[in-house]
Protein backbone atom coordinates (compact mmCIF):
# COMPACT_ATOMS: atom_id res chain seq x y z
CA UNK A 1 0.00 0.00 0.00
CA UNK A 2 2.95 2.33 0.43
CA UNK A 3 2.90 3.17 -3.25
CA UNK A 4 -0.68 4.38 -3.10
CA UNK A 5 -1.51 7.98 -2.83
CA UNK A 6 -4.71 9.80 -2.00
CA UNK A 7 -5.39 13.41 -2.83
CA UNK A 8 -7.25 15.67 -0.43
CA UNK A 9 -8.74 18.84 -1.74
CA UNK A 10 -9.94 21.20 0.95
CA UNK A 11 -12.02 24.34 0.69
CA UNK A 12 -10.11 26.67 3.08
CA UNK A 13 -13.09 29.05 2.84
CA UNK A 14 -12.67 32.39 4.54
CA UNK A 15 -16.30 33.33 4.99
CA UNK A 16 -17.15 31.01 7.83
CA UNK A 17 -15.53 28.88 10.50
CA UNK A 18 -16.08 25.65 8.56
CA UNK A 19 -13.41 26.62 6.03
CA UNK A 20 -10.82 27.15 8.72
CA UNK A 21 -11.65 23.79 10.29
CA UNK A 22 -11.49 22.03 6.88
CA UNK A 23 -8.10 23.47 6.17
CA UNK A 24 -6.60 22.62 9.53
CA UNK A 25 -8.05 19.11 9.56
CA UNK A 26 -6.61 18.45 6.10
CA UNK A 27 -3.18 19.68 7.16
CA UNK A 28 -3.42 17.55 10.29
CA UNK A 29 -4.05 14.41 8.27
CA UNK A 30 -1.12 15.25 6.07
CA UNK A 31 1.35 16.25 8.77
CA UNK A 32 0.49 14.16 11.78
CA UNK A 33 -1.62 11.16 10.98
CA UNK A 34 0.14 10.02 7.82
CA UNK A 35 -1.90 6.85 7.61
CA UNK A 36 -1.60 6.70 3.89
CA UNK A 37 0.45 8.73 1.50
CA UNK A 38 -1.76 11.77 1.30
CA UNK A 39 -1.16 14.69 -0.99
CA UNK A 40 -2.93 17.98 -0.45
CA UNK A 41 -4.07 19.51 -3.68
CA UNK A 42 -4.10 23.27 -3.81
CA UNK A 43 -7.69 24.22 -4.53
CA UNK A 44 -6.99 27.72 -5.91
CA UNK A 45 -4.32 26.34 -8.20
CA UNK A 46 -6.63 23.54 -9.17
CA UNK A 47 -9.29 26.10 -10.06
CA UNK A 48 -6.82 28.28 -11.94
CA UNK A 49 -5.98 25.39 -14.22
CA UNK A 50 -2.89 23.93 -12.51
CA UNK A 51 -1.98 20.88 -14.56
CA UNK A 52 -0.20 19.10 -11.72
CA UNK A 53 -3.21 19.30 -9.44
CA UNK A 54 -5.81 18.37 -12.02
CA UNK A 55 -3.88 15.44 -13.43
CA UNK A 56 -3.24 14.06 -9.99
CA UNK A 57 -6.94 14.12 -9.18
CA UNK A 58 -7.70 12.36 -12.44
CA UNK A 59 -5.24 9.56 -11.78
CA UNK A 60 -5.39 9.05 -8.02
CA UNK A 61 -8.38 8.68 -5.75
CA UNK A 62 -9.26 12.06 -4.35
CA UNK A 63 -11.59 13.22 -1.62
CA UNK A 64 -12.91 16.68 -0.89
CA UNK A 65 -13.33 18.48 2.40
CA UNK A 66 -15.82 21.35 2.50
CA UNK A 67 -16.67 23.73 5.31
CA UNK A 68 -20.31 24.23 4.43
CA UNK A 69 -23.05 22.67 2.38
CA UNK A 70 -22.18 24.76 -0.67
CA UNK A 71 -19.58 22.03 -1.26
CA UNK A 72 -17.39 24.18 -3.50
CA UNK A 73 -14.37 21.85 -3.38
CA UNK A 74 -16.48 18.79 -4.17
CA UNK A 75 -18.27 20.46 -7.05
CA UNK A 76 -15.14 21.81 -8.66
CA UNK A 77 -13.25 18.53 -8.33
CA UNK A 78 -16.11 16.75 -10.07
CA UNK A 79 -16.18 19.42 -12.72
CA UNK A 80 -12.50 19.27 -13.64
CA UNK A 81 -11.33 15.78 -12.76
CA UNK A 82 -14.40 13.60 -12.88
CA UNK A 83 -15.75 11.56 -10.02
CA UNK A 84 -14.47 11.97 -6.50
CA UNK A 85 -13.97 9.06 -4.13
CA UNK A 86 -15.46 10.54 -1.02
CA UNK A 87 -16.43 13.89 0.44
CA UNK A 88 -16.79 15.53 3.78
CA UNK A 89 -19.13 18.32 4.73
CA UNK A 90 -17.74 19.84 7.91
CA UNK A 91 -21.05 21.48 8.76
CA UNK A 92 -22.56 18.00 9.14
CA UNK A 93 -19.88 17.10 11.70
CA UNK A 94 -19.63 20.21 13.83
CA UNK A 95 -23.16 21.44 13.23
CA UNK A 96 -24.49 23.93 10.77
CA UNK A 97 -24.64 26.80 13.17
CA UNK A 98 -21.02 26.48 14.23
CA UNK A 99 -19.73 25.88 10.74
CA UNK A 100 -21.53 28.86 9.28
CA UNK A 101 -20.40 31.21 12.02
CA UNK A 102 -19.22 34.18 10.03
CA UNK A 103 -17.02 35.34 12.83
CA UNK A 104 -13.99 33.79 11.17
CA UNK A 105 -11.08 33.18 13.45
CA UNK A 106 -7.46 33.78 12.71
CA UNK A 107 -5.20 30.85 13.43
CA UNK A 108 -3.63 32.49 16.43
CA UNK A 109 -7.02 32.90 18.11
CA UNK A 110 -8.13 29.29 17.89
CA UNK A 111 -9.45 27.80 21.13
CA UNK A 112 -9.28 24.25 22.47
CA UNK A 113 -12.84 23.81 21.40
CA UNK A 114 -11.88 24.60 17.82
CA UNK A 115 -8.94 22.23 17.97
CA UNK A 116 -11.28 19.46 19.08
CA UNK A 117 -13.40 20.10 16.02
CA UNK A 118 -10.26 19.85 13.90
CA UNK A 119 -9.48 16.46 15.47
CA UNK A 120 -13.02 15.28 14.85
CA UNK A 121 -12.92 16.26 11.19
CA UNK A 122 -9.42 14.83 10.76
CA UNK A 123 -10.55 11.43 11.99
CA UNK A 124 -13.51 11.65 9.63
CA UNK A 125 -11.10 12.29 6.75
CA UNK A 126 -9.08 9.24 7.76
CA UNK A 127 -12.27 7.16 7.88
CA UNK A 128 -13.30 8.37 4.43
CA UNK A 129 -9.89 7.48 3.02
CA UNK A 130 -10.02 3.99 4.47
CA UNK A 131 -13.44 3.52 2.88
CA UNK A 132 -12.11 4.14 -0.61
CA UNK A 133 -12.69 1.03 -2.61
CA UNK A 134 -9.49 -0.84 -3.54
CA UNK A 135 -10.73 -0.76 -7.12
CA UNK A 136 -10.06 2.96 -7.21
CA UNK A 137 -6.35 2.25 -7.16
CA UNK A 138 -6.20 -0.39 -9.82
CA UNK A 139 -4.24 0.53 -12.87
CA UNK A 140 -3.53 3.91 -11.40
CA UNK A 141 0.15 4.28 -11.96
CA UNK A 142 2.07 6.93 -13.74
CA UNK A 143 2.77 4.85 -16.79
CA UNK A 144 0.77 7.11 -19.00
CA UNK A 145 3.41 9.77 -19.19
CA UNK A 146 5.39 8.10 -21.90
CA UNK A 147 8.44 7.62 -19.74
CA UNK A 148 8.27 3.90 -20.21
CA UNK A 149 8.18 3.04 -16.53
CA UNK B 1 20.18 7.94 0.31
CA UNK B 2 23.76 8.43 -0.81
CA UNK B 3 24.36 7.87 -4.48
CA UNK B 4 26.73 5.01 -4.85
CA UNK B 5 28.38 6.35 -7.97
CA UNK B 6 29.25 9.75 -9.35
CA UNK B 7 29.98 10.01 -13.07
CA UNK B 8 30.20 6.24 -13.15
CA UNK B 9 32.87 6.20 -10.44
CA UNK B 10 32.26 4.54 -7.11
CA UNK B 11 31.49 7.39 -4.73
CA UNK B 12 33.78 6.02 -2.03
CA UNK B 13 36.76 6.44 -4.36
CA UNK B 14 36.18 10.16 -4.77
CA UNK B 15 37.70 12.28 -2.09
CA UNK B 16 35.12 15.00 -1.69
CA UNK B 17 33.89 16.00 1.73
CA UNK B 18 33.94 18.97 4.06
CA UNK B 19 36.77 19.21 6.57
CA UNK B 20 36.08 21.08 9.79
CA UNK B 21 38.85 23.20 11.26
CA UNK B 22 38.14 22.82 14.95
CA UNK B 23 40.34 25.77 15.84
CA UNK B 24 37.81 27.95 14.06
CA UNK B 25 34.49 26.08 14.44
CA UNK B 26 32.17 27.60 17.04
CA UNK B 27 29.60 24.80 16.77
CA UNK B 28 26.83 27.07 15.59
CA UNK B 29 25.57 24.07 13.55
CA UNK B 30 24.45 26.20 10.62
CA UNK B 31 26.15 23.79 8.19
CA UNK B 32 24.31 20.84 9.67
CA UNK B 33 21.00 22.68 9.51
CA UNK B 34 21.70 23.54 5.90
CA UNK B 35 22.87 20.17 4.55
CA UNK B 36 19.97 17.94 3.49
CA UNK B 37 22.19 14.87 3.11
CA UNK B 38 23.11 14.16 6.73
CA UNK B 39 26.81 14.63 6.06
CA UNK B 40 27.32 16.07 9.55
CA UNK B 41 26.34 14.68 12.91
CA UNK B 42 25.79 16.65 16.10
CA UNK B 43 27.14 15.28 19.40
CA UNK B 44 25.59 17.65 21.91
CA UNK B 45 27.15 16.19 25.02
CA UNK B 46 30.70 15.84 23.76
CA UNK B 47 33.53 18.35 23.52
CA UNK B 48 33.60 18.11 19.75
CA UNK B 49 29.97 18.72 19.08
CA UNK B 50 30.03 18.33 15.32
CA UNK B 51 31.63 15.70 13.11
CA UNK B 52 31.62 14.77 9.45
CA UNK B 53 29.71 11.54 9.86
CA UNK B 54 28.82 10.50 6.33
CA UNK B 55 31.46 11.87 3.96
CA UNK B 56 30.20 9.86 1.01
CA UNK B 57 26.76 11.43 1.34
CA UNK B 58 28.35 14.73 0.39
CA UNK B 59 27.41 15.74 -3.15
CA UNK B 60 30.59 15.86 -5.21
CA UNK B 61 31.48 19.49 -6.06
CA UNK B 62 28.87 20.93 -3.69
CA UNK B 63 30.37 23.43 -1.28
CA UNK B 64 27.20 25.11 -0.20
CA UNK B 65 27.55 24.32 3.52
CA UNK B 66 30.82 26.26 3.69
CA UNK B 67 28.92 29.38 2.67
CA UNK B 68 26.78 29.12 5.79
CA UNK B 69 29.89 28.99 7.98
CA UNK B 70 30.47 32.32 9.73
CA UNK B 71 33.96 31.51 11.10
CA UNK B 72 35.00 29.97 7.76
CA UNK B 73 35.91 26.66 9.34
CA UNK B 74 34.90 24.38 6.45
CA UNK B 75 37.19 23.53 3.56
CA UNK B 76 36.88 21.23 0.58
CA UNK B 77 39.43 19.43 -1.57
CA UNK B 78 40.75 21.13 -4.70
CA UNK B 79 38.05 20.91 -7.33
CA UNK B 80 40.38 20.61 -10.30
CA UNK B 81 42.38 17.85 -8.65
CA UNK B 82 39.14 16.00 -7.95
CA UNK B 83 38.01 16.43 -11.54
CA UNK B 84 41.34 15.08 -12.76
CA UNK B 85 41.15 12.16 -10.38
CA UNK B 86 37.66 11.24 -11.57
CA UNK B 87 38.86 11.34 -15.16
CA UNK B 88 41.81 9.10 -14.30
CA UNK B 89 39.67 6.56 -12.51
CA UNK B 90 37.31 6.50 -15.47
CA UNK B 91 40.23 5.87 -17.81
CA UNK B 92 41.49 3.06 -15.59
CA UNK B 93 38.01 1.57 -15.59
CA UNK B 94 37.85 1.74 -19.36
CA UNK B 95 41.24 0.12 -19.86
CA UNK B 96 40.29 -2.60 -17.39
CA UNK B 97 37.27 -3.26 -19.52
Amino acid sequence: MSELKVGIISCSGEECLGGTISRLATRKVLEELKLVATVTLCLPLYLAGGVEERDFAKVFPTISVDGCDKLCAKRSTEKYSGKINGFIDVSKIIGNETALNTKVIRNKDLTDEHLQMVDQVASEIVKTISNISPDSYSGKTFGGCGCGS
Amino acid sequence: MSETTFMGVERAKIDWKPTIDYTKCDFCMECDKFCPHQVFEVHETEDIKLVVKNPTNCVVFCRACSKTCGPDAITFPDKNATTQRIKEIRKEMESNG
Partner: protein
Amino acid sequence: MVENYAVLPCNGLDKCAGVISGELAIKLCQDAKNEIICPVFYRIADAKYNKIASEHPLLVIDGCQTKCASKLAAEKNLKISRKVTITEEAKKHNIELNRNLRLNENENALIEIILNGLNNDTEKVTLLSDESKFSSDFEYEIFQNGKFIFRVPRNPEVYFNENDCWAYVIGNRARIGVTDFVQQNLSDILYFTPPEIGSEIDQFGEVGEIESSKSVFELISPVSGKVISINETLEQKPELINENPYELGWIAEIELTDFDSDKELLIGFDKYFEIMKKKTEDSNV
Protein backbone atom coordinates in the same frame (compact mmCIF):
# COMPACT_ATOMS: atom_id res chain seq x y z
CA MET C 1 27.06 51.28 -21.35
CA VAL C 2 28.30 49.97 -24.64
CA GLU C 3 29.81 46.68 -23.65
CA ASN C 4 30.56 43.36 -25.22
CA TYR C 5 30.37 44.67 -28.75
CA ALA C 6 32.68 43.79 -31.56
CA VAL C 7 33.77 47.20 -32.88
CA LEU C 8 34.67 47.53 -36.53
CA PRO C 9 36.01 51.02 -37.47
CA CYS C 10 36.98 52.04 -41.00
CA ASN C 11 40.23 53.38 -39.56
CA GLY C 12 40.82 55.39 -42.75
CA LEU C 13 44.16 57.09 -42.45
CA ASP C 14 43.85 59.65 -45.19
CA LYS C 15 40.91 61.56 -43.78
CA CYS C 16 40.34 63.10 -40.42
CA ALA C 17 36.99 61.34 -40.07
CA GLY C 18 38.73 58.02 -40.61
CA VAL C 19 41.29 58.76 -37.94
CA ILE C 20 38.45 59.70 -35.58
CA SER C 21 36.76 56.35 -36.25
CA GLY C 22 39.95 54.58 -35.22
CA GLU C 23 40.36 56.67 -32.10
CA LEU C 24 36.71 56.12 -31.11
CA ALA C 25 37.13 52.37 -31.52
CA ILE C 26 40.26 52.39 -29.35
CA LYS C 27 38.42 54.31 -26.66
CA LEU C 28 35.49 51.88 -26.76
CA CYS C 29 37.80 48.92 -26.37
CA GLN C 30 40.20 50.38 -23.84
CA ASP C 31 37.71 51.83 -21.41
CA ALA C 32 34.95 49.27 -21.70
CA LYS C 33 34.73 45.58 -22.46
CA ASN C 34 34.48 45.69 -26.25
CA GLU C 35 36.57 43.84 -28.83
CA ILE C 36 38.18 45.66 -31.69
CA ILE C 37 38.29 44.32 -35.24
CA CYS C 38 41.11 45.66 -37.39
CA PRO C 39 39.67 46.21 -40.87
CA VAL C 40 43.00 45.80 -42.56
CA PHE C 41 43.93 42.57 -40.86
CA TYR C 42 40.37 41.26 -41.27
CA ARG C 43 40.87 41.19 -45.04
CA ILE C 44 43.63 38.63 -44.75
CA ALA C 45 42.84 36.86 -41.47
CA ASP C 46 39.23 35.76 -41.35
CA ALA C 47 39.52 33.21 -38.59
CA LYS C 48 40.52 35.53 -35.80
CA TYR C 49 37.76 38.05 -36.31
CA ASN C 50 34.97 35.79 -37.50
CA LYS C 51 34.98 34.27 -34.05
CA ILE C 52 34.72 37.66 -32.34
CA ALA C 53 32.07 38.80 -34.77
CA SER C 54 29.95 35.69 -34.29
CA GLU C 55 29.95 36.05 -30.54
CA HIS C 56 29.26 39.75 -30.14
CA PRO C 57 26.81 42.20 -31.57
CA LEU C 58 28.58 44.34 -34.13
CA LEU C 59 29.13 48.09 -33.89
CA VAL C 60 30.37 49.57 -37.16
CA ILE C 61 32.08 52.99 -37.27
CA ASP C 62 32.34 54.58 -40.71
CA GLY C 63 34.37 57.74 -41.17
CA CYS C 64 32.67 59.09 -44.28
CA GLN C 65 29.91 58.32 -46.70
CA THR C 66 32.04 55.83 -48.63
CA LYS C 67 31.18 53.52 -45.74
CA CYS C 68 34.09 51.15 -46.15
CA ALA C 69 33.53 49.52 -42.77
CA SER C 70 29.85 48.79 -43.50
CA LYS C 71 30.79 47.37 -46.87
CA LEU C 72 33.42 45.17 -45.28
CA ALA C 73 30.83 43.90 -42.78
CA ALA C 74 28.45 43.10 -45.64
CA GLU C 75 31.18 41.34 -47.53
CA LYS C 76 31.86 39.15 -44.49
CA ASN C 77 28.14 38.46 -44.00
CA LEU C 78 28.02 40.13 -40.62
CA LYS C 79 24.87 41.46 -39.12
CA ILE C 80 25.30 45.06 -38.02
CA SER C 81 23.67 45.86 -34.68
CA ARG C 82 24.67 49.51 -34.43
CA LYS C 83 26.23 52.02 -36.73
CA VAL C 84 27.99 55.36 -36.34
CA THR C 85 29.11 57.61 -39.22
CA ILE C 86 31.58 60.25 -38.09
CA THR C 87 30.80 62.91 -40.71
CA GLU C 88 27.08 62.63 -39.93
CA GLU C 89 27.70 62.95 -36.21
CA ALA C 90 29.88 66.02 -36.80
CA LYS C 91 27.14 67.63 -38.80
CA LYS C 92 24.51 66.78 -36.22
CA HIS C 93 26.51 68.37 -33.43
CA ASN C 94 27.72 71.31 -35.50
CA ILE C 95 31.35 70.44 -35.18
CA GLU C 96 33.70 71.30 -37.97
CA LEU C 97 36.43 68.75 -38.49
CA ASN C 98 39.89 69.96 -39.43
CA ARG C 99 41.62 69.12 -42.63
CA ASN C 100 44.78 67.57 -41.34
CA LEU C 101 44.99 64.17 -39.72
CA ARG C 102 45.82 65.14 -36.16
CA LEU C 103 43.04 65.21 -33.62
CA ASN C 104 42.50 68.56 -31.96
CA GLU C 105 40.00 69.95 -29.51
CA ASN C 106 37.00 69.74 -31.87
CA GLU C 107 37.70 66.17 -32.87
CA ASN C 108 38.22 65.03 -29.28
CA ALA C 109 35.03 66.78 -28.24
CA LEU C 110 33.13 64.94 -30.96
CA ILE C 111 34.55 61.62 -29.77
CA GLU C 112 33.34 62.36 -26.24
CA ILE C 113 29.87 63.29 -27.51
CA ILE C 114 29.56 60.11 -29.51
CA LEU C 115 30.83 58.00 -26.59
CA ASN C 116 28.31 59.59 -24.27
CA GLY C 117 25.55 59.02 -26.75
CA LEU C 118 26.47 55.37 -27.10
CA ASN C 119 26.78 54.85 -23.37
CA ASN C 120 23.49 56.48 -22.56
CA ASP C 121 21.62 54.36 -24.99
CA THR C 122 20.93 51.24 -23.00
CA GLU C 123 18.39 49.92 -25.40
CA LYS C 124 20.53 47.63 -27.47
CA VAL C 125 23.23 46.77 -25.02
CA THR C 126 21.47 43.66 -23.82
CA LEU C 127 21.52 42.25 -27.29
CA LEU C 128 24.34 39.99 -26.19
CA SER C 129 22.37 36.82 -26.08
CA ASP C 130 21.57 35.69 -29.55
CA GLU C 131 18.07 34.42 -29.00
CA SER C 132 17.82 32.84 -32.39
CA LYS C 133 20.87 30.74 -31.65
CA PHE C 134 19.31 29.11 -28.62
CA SER C 135 15.94 28.11 -29.88
CA SER C 136 13.74 26.82 -27.12
CA ASP C 137 11.66 24.22 -28.79
CA PHE C 138 12.74 21.47 -26.48
CA GLU C 139 11.11 18.13 -26.54
CA TYR C 140 10.53 16.98 -22.98
CA GLU C 141 10.32 13.63 -21.35
CA ILE C 142 8.15 13.74 -18.27
CA PHE C 143 7.72 11.80 -15.08
CA GLN C 144 5.61 12.45 -12.05
CA ASN C 145 6.14 11.96 -8.38
CA GLY C 146 2.96 12.53 -6.41
CA LYS C 147 1.49 15.59 -8.03
CA PHE C 148 4.85 17.02 -9.05
CA ILE C 149 5.85 16.96 -12.69
CA PHE C 150 9.50 16.68 -13.69
CA ARG C 151 10.71 17.36 -17.20
CA VAL C 152 14.02 16.75 -18.89
CA PRO C 153 14.75 17.99 -22.41
CA ARG C 154 15.70 15.26 -24.85
CA ASN C 155 17.68 17.41 -27.25
CA PRO C 156 21.18 16.07 -27.94
CA GLU C 157 22.71 19.54 -27.58
CA VAL C 158 21.68 19.62 -23.93
CA TYR C 159 24.20 18.12 -21.49
CA PHE C 160 23.88 17.61 -17.75
CA ASN C 161 26.12 17.18 -14.76
CA GLU C 162 25.11 15.12 -11.77
CA ASN C 163 24.72 18.34 -9.81
CA ASP C 164 21.42 18.99 -11.58
CA CYS C 165 22.62 21.72 -13.90
CA TRP C 166 22.35 21.68 -17.68
CA ALA C 167 24.31 23.21 -20.54
CA TYR C 168 22.77 23.81 -23.95
CA VAL C 169 25.72 23.91 -26.31
CA ILE C 170 25.70 25.60 -29.71
CA GLY C 171 29.07 26.18 -31.34
CA ASN C 172 31.42 27.63 -28.79
CA ARG C 173 28.70 28.95 -26.56
CA ALA C 174 26.56 27.36 -23.92
CA ARG C 175 23.51 28.45 -22.08
CA ILE C 176 23.34 27.01 -18.59
CA GLY C 177 20.68 26.56 -15.96
CA VAL C 178 19.16 24.22 -13.40
CA THR C 179 16.84 21.26 -13.94
CA ASP C 180 13.30 20.70 -12.76
CA PHE C 181 14.70 18.69 -9.88
CA VAL C 182 16.25 21.83 -8.40
CA GLN C 183 13.29 24.12 -8.92
CA GLN C 184 10.78 21.61 -7.54
CA ASN C 185 12.93 21.04 -4.47
CA LEU C 186 13.44 24.73 -3.79
CA SER C 187 9.80 25.62 -4.47
CA ASP C 188 9.17 29.35 -5.04
CA ILE C 189 12.49 30.91 -5.98
CA LEU C 190 12.75 34.39 -4.51
CA TYR C 191 16.32 35.50 -5.14
CA PHE C 192 18.75 35.19 -8.03
CA THR C 193 22.42 36.00 -7.65
CA PRO C 194 23.96 35.87 -11.12
CA PRO C 195 27.61 35.12 -11.81
CA GLU C 196 29.71 38.11 -12.75
CA ILE C 197 29.86 38.88 -16.45
CA GLY C 198 33.39 38.41 -17.69
CA SER C 199 34.37 36.01 -14.92
CA GLU C 200 36.21 32.83 -15.82
CA ILE C 201 34.54 29.67 -14.57
CA ASP C 202 36.08 26.21 -14.20
CA GLN C 203 34.02 23.17 -14.92
CA PHE C 204 32.20 22.38 -11.65
CA GLY C 205 32.92 25.88 -10.38
CA GLU C 206 30.17 28.02 -8.89
CA VAL C 207 28.18 29.99 -11.35
CA GLY C 208 25.52 31.88 -9.45
CA GLU C 209 23.04 31.15 -6.73
CA ILE C 210 19.29 30.84 -6.42
CA GLU C 211 17.36 30.89 -3.20
CA SER C 212 13.87 30.16 -1.96
CA SER C 213 12.50 30.42 1.54
CA LYS C 214 13.39 26.75 1.90
CA SER C 215 16.99 26.66 0.81
CA VAL C 216 19.87 28.04 -1.22
CA PHE C 217 21.20 26.33 -4.33
CA GLU C 218 24.59 27.10 -5.80
CA LEU C 219 24.83 26.37 -9.47
CA ILE C 220 27.72 24.11 -10.33
CA SER C 221 28.80 24.87 -13.86
CA PRO C 222 28.69 21.94 -16.27
CA VAL C 223 31.20 23.72 -18.52
CA SER C 224 34.33 25.84 -18.30
CA GLY C 225 34.64 29.23 -19.90
CA LYS C 226 33.86 32.91 -19.59
CA VAL C 227 30.49 34.28 -18.51
CA ILE C 228 29.39 36.51 -21.35
CA SER C 229 25.82 37.14 -20.48
CA ILE C 230 23.27 36.57 -17.75
CA ASN C 231 19.51 36.31 -17.84
CA GLU C 232 18.75 39.77 -16.51
CA THR C 233 15.01 39.15 -16.45
CA LEU C 234 15.51 36.77 -13.54
CA GLU C 235 16.63 39.58 -11.28
CA GLN C 236 13.08 40.92 -11.35
CA LYS C 237 11.28 37.65 -12.01
CA PRO C 238 13.16 34.72 -10.49
CA GLU C 239 9.88 32.77 -10.61
CA LEU C 240 10.60 32.13 -14.29
CA ILE C 241 13.03 29.46 -13.07
CA ASN C 242 10.06 27.68 -11.47
CA GLU C 243 7.96 28.12 -14.56
CA ASN C 244 10.50 26.61 -16.90
CA PRO C 245 14.14 26.31 -15.86
CA TYR C 246 15.20 25.21 -19.35
CA GLU C 247 13.77 28.06 -21.40
CA LEU C 248 12.80 31.44 -19.89
CA GLY C 249 14.56 30.44 -16.69
CA TRP C 250 18.07 30.01 -18.13
CA ILE C 251 20.80 31.45 -15.93
CA ALA C 252 23.83 32.51 -17.96
CA GLU C 253 25.71 32.15 -21.20
CA ILE C 254 29.26 30.90 -21.25
CA GLU C 255 31.87 31.22 -23.95
CA LEU C 256 33.38 27.76 -23.92
CA THR C 257 37.09 27.26 -23.51
CA ASP C 258 37.50 23.49 -23.53
CA PHE C 259 34.22 21.78 -24.18
CA ASP C 260 35.83 18.63 -25.56
CA SER C 261 37.39 18.03 -22.21
CA ASP C 262 34.29 19.18 -20.25
CA LYS C 263 32.20 16.70 -22.18
CA GLU C 264 34.02 13.76 -20.64
CA LEU C 265 32.32 14.48 -17.34
CA LEU C 266 28.89 15.34 -18.64
CA ILE C 267 25.93 13.12 -19.36
CA GLY C 268 23.13 13.22 -21.86
CA PHE C 269 19.38 12.91 -21.53
CA ASP C 270 19.23 9.13 -21.09
CA LYS C 271 21.48 8.98 -18.08
CA TYR C 272 20.29 12.15 -16.44
CA PHE C 273 16.65 11.19 -16.73
CA GLU C 274 17.31 8.00 -14.78
CA ILE C 275 19.45 9.80 -12.19
CA MET C 276 16.85 12.49 -11.63
CA LYS C 277 14.11 9.94 -11.28
CA LYS C 278 16.04 8.07 -8.65
CA LYS C 279 16.93 11.25 -6.77
CA THR C 280 13.30 12.30 -6.79
CA GLU C 281 12.15 9.01 -5.38
CA ASP C 282 14.84 9.13 -2.70
CA SER C 283 14.27 12.69 -1.65
CA ASN C 284 10.48 12.58 -1.79
CA VAL C 285 10.05 16.18 -2.82
